[in-house]
């Protein structure tokens, strides 16, 4: 299933070779394969279509330099376009406000609680912050216990209110607690929710309004398929979030959802999760993600062979 793009491009590039200019005829086959590779990587259907159209426009009529053959030029065009789409510069986290309030959001099981712990650990060890973790998931069985275990592992205090089922109250109380106890970062873990669950979307909107966070983060599983655009858009419509967290990138998914989300909400991807342990957090690198989506390492070696 996960044939390298290089396999697919092999034939397509062959048809391009030996031409001095990129023409509609010799570009078509290559773009078909690029589109196919994007779909296999879970890039959204429409976005893949638009992407290949844009590349086509850019490619047509381009003179092929003597150092590059047409295949190499196409690959370069595709890669440049993809990297640009993925976000150019790396964007950090806004640590303004006193305390800085960070709100997590996302679907069920995307990795919010784990990432809350990782981010707390990162800010504590790398930025010497005093962090407070807040358990606002009042639904999932043992959600609060999970956050408490995480907090213990990294030596960060966890604020929770047993018996209180109102996340708006809990988050407000937590911020007051943070102020009173010299904490300068508050990370609020919330329950997973579906974008179509109106009640739950209203709840997170209310939390958001009540606490006015400096950073609202949308946590998304990098294995997500075509639905990524719908979900990201729905969460963004309600929260106008500041950044995206891509989790579970230690797997072998191509992670095309990243491109889909970026295209649809145009918010920076800030961090990636690369494991279950508390130190498995990394800054997002757009160029690496572009490479990953297309399996570019393979493509480049192919072009070198050509």
């Amino acid at each position, binding site marked *: *299933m*996960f044939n390298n793009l290089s396999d697919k491009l092999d034939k397509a590039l062959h048809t391009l070779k030996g031409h001095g200019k990129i023409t509609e005829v010799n570009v078509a086959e290559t773009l078909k394969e690029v589109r196919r590779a994007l779909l*296999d990587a879970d890039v959204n259907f429409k976005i893949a279509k638009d992407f290949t159209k844009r590349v086509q426009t850019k490619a047509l009529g381009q003179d092929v330099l003597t150092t590059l053959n047409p295949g190499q030029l196409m690959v370069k065009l595709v890669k440049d376009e993809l990297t640009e789409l993925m976000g150019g510069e790396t964007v950090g986290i806004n640590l303004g406000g006193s305390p800085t309030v960070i709100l997590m959001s996302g679907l*069920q099981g995307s990795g919010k609680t784990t990432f809350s712990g990782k981010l707390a650990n990162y800010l504590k060890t790398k930025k010497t912050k005093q962090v407070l973790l807040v358990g606002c998931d009042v639904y999932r*069985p043992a959600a609060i216990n999970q956050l408490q275990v995480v907090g213990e592992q990294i030596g960060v205090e966890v604020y929770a209110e047993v018996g209180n089922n109102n996340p708006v109250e809990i988050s407000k109380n937590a911020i007051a607690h943070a102020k009173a106890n010299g904490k300068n970062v508050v990370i609020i873990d919330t329950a997973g929710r579906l974008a179509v669950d109106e009640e739950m979307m209203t709840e997170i909107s209310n939390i958001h309004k009540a606490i006015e966070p400096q950073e609202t983060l949308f946590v998304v599983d990098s294995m997500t*398929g075509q639905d990524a655009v719908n979900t990201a858009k729905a969460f963004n419509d309600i929260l106008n979030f500041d950044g995206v967290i891509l989790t579970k990138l230690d797997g072998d998914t191509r992670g095309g959802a990243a491109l889909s989300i970026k295209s649809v909400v145009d918010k920076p991807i800030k961090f990636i999760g690369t494991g*279950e342990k508390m130190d498995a957090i990394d800054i997002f690198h757009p160029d690496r993600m572009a490479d990953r989506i297309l399996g570019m390492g393979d493509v480049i070696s192919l072009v070198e062979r050509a």
Partner: protein
Amino acid sequence: EKTNTNFFDKLSKAVAGKSKVDDDVLDNLEEVLVASDVGVDTTLKVITRIEDRVARDKYVGTDELNKILREEIAGLLSETNLGNETEFTIPEIPKDKNGKKMPYVLMVVGVNGVGKTTTIGKLASQFKKQGLKVVLGAADTFRAAAIDQLQVWADRTDVPIVRQEMGSDPASVAFDTLKSAVNQDADVVIIDTAGRLHNKVNLMNELTKIKRVMQKVVDNSPHDVLLVLDGSTGQNAFEQAKQFTLATEVTSLAVTKLDGTAKGGVVIGISDQFKIPVKYIGIGEGIDDLQVFNKIEFVDSFFK
């Protein structure tokens, strides 16, 4: 919903009375299927089937055409999915060498966060409703509070659970669970396992070990290895199915979170390629939000 009627209208108009489906319609069909995570390969397979069928049975009417479409897609779902199961039952009552009744052992596996533990809670409730005696085994000893989470489900369903400390050997928990189940004369054992990405060799080997250890207590166990797939997962689910099958011989699938907007279409190709039946779908976080899989309804949801 608008695009839905449009789609079938267009399809019918374009196909009725002809021996060939035109490209526009096929593009439309492709879009519906790819957008449901069916994947390019499987989509092309479906399209070929439809083309063949239309070429063979010219002059198909609208209703008939819609039916063909659904049938051809559903046809890719493993033949083992008869589509007529409506109840949560266990397929057999295992016996040991001496003919003594043994518990039916179900091991639940999958990548992180797909819904394994929740599905186990829901299944326990359903099996219990059937009058079966259920025992749960908390063999996810790794994830923070995973054991507490399963304990909450055990309490909710009023079913016994076998657990050890966090960090203990999962194979040892599975072993204890089976021993306890045999002693209690239980009908069904469900073993929860830690989420693991299929490209992590050590963690996959751990599953193989859990299986081996369980066979020391109950012959031929686990009788069912249920791979849970998150319905919003894209093409990576193929690799998941492949690697978990290699490590544990997956015998059935559950697709979760279908109460969202994701369609879970990737299971069509998986079921077709690996011949593994889809048994259950998860449609919520509540105890009753589990259904026996119905392939026609499932395929219909792509066009809604």
